[in-house]
């Protein structure tokens, strides 16, 4: 039984060895065995045609697999770059603006030396860090904007104040650089559950000018809409009771 198995193994090795030989050698071997050279050539070309189709299908499958993996990997890498390292990356802006907030003397006075920054409350147990609520859009002047909101509190000493940080950055149409519009902190007194005012950590002059201009146009309107409707102060809007001044 053992010798039978051994002989089978030997013949398998021999076959493999034959297959690895050059085509000419195989051809001559088969010629010496079958004495029919032309027929051998014909059958060989036929079998390679079928093998080529199968090979191409296999290659296409491999290319598809590798391509999809590379695409997925590239997308994940891009996402990481976009979030962590890019100029308008949410995590990067969060880090920079939180440093600005911490450096502010008013904030230090309210919160003390240790200010923790954190995002929205998480619903899952497995979430590592709380997601920061943010929004990317194109504003009415055609600039790319990114606004975000997160929270600050003193968790070490357990103060009774909580701050809502609002950050707004915009991409300059001229230089293509991102810069802040504002970083403001709305402070809430959680012990007495009342609004404790707003700390303006950073408001750029350009943005302040813009806000003042929009306030001016709002004040100059003929009817006080108070943000209720889309009235532009035209004649028809006076007919709508919601636009009547109280």
């Amino acid at each position: 039984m053992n010798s039978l198995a051994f002989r089978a193994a030997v013949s398998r090795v021999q076959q493999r060895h034959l297959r690895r030989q050059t085509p000419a050698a195989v051809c001559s071997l088969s010629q010496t065995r079958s004495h029919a050279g032309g027929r051998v050539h014909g059958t060989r070309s036929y079998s390679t045609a079928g093998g080529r189709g199968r090979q191409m299908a296999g290659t296409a499958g491999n290319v598809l697999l590798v391509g999809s993996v590379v695409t997925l990997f590239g997308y994940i890498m891009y996402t990481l770059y976009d979030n962590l390292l890019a100029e308008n990356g949410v995590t990067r802006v969060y880090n920079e603006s939180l440093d600005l907030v911490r450096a502010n003397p008013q904030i230090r006075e309210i919160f003390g030396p240790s200010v923790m920054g954190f995002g929205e409350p998480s619903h899952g147990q497995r979430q590592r860090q709380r997601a920061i609520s943010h929004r990317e859009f194109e504003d009415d002047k055609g600039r790319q904007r990114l606004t975000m909101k997160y929270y600050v509190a003193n968790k070490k000493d357990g103060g009774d104040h909580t701050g809502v940080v609002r950050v707004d950055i915009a991409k300059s149409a001229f230089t293509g650089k991102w810069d802040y519009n504002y970083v403001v902190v709305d402070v809430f007194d959680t012990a007495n559950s009342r609004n404790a005012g707003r700390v303006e950590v950073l408001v750029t002059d350009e943005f302040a000018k813009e806000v003042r201009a929009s306030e001016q146009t709002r004040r100059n309107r003929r009817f006080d809409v108070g943000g209720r409707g889309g009235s532009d102060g035209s004649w028809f809007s006076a007919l709508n009771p919601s636009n009547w001044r109280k």
Partner: protein
Amino acid sequence: MRGADVSRDPCPWVILNDAGGAFAMGAIGGGTWHYIKGARNSPYGERFRGGMNAMRSRGPIIGGNFAVWGGMFSTFECVLKGIRQKEDPWNSIGSGAITGGMLAARGGWKAASVSAVFGGVLLALIEGVGIAMSRAFAQQPPAIAPPPAQQ
């Protein structure tokens, strides 16, 4: 003030949680793996018993390894969170790197640094998948009126 839930800081307890979760994951996954491996390596008629033996002897070890990784990772993440006072993906990337480095520390500086880079990259990939998933599935928050009242 729905958003400002300050009271929920999970940090010391999440370590236990993570270590347990990692142990369960490693024990179940490693147990299945070694059951199949043990069954394949056993002769006919002894497959089930061989697989069970391999699973019993090997599964808990894999679970323990996973638990060490998860527990150390969670500990370092809490430490980083406490030091930086910030919650962002850098915490978990950094703690993955530190964990990898610490677990390979007995192999010398070179092995430790290679392992640290590997751990950091692994955790960065996991974070990237999480960010991409949240970007794909989370709806954009409704338009907030951003301008601050300037007087």
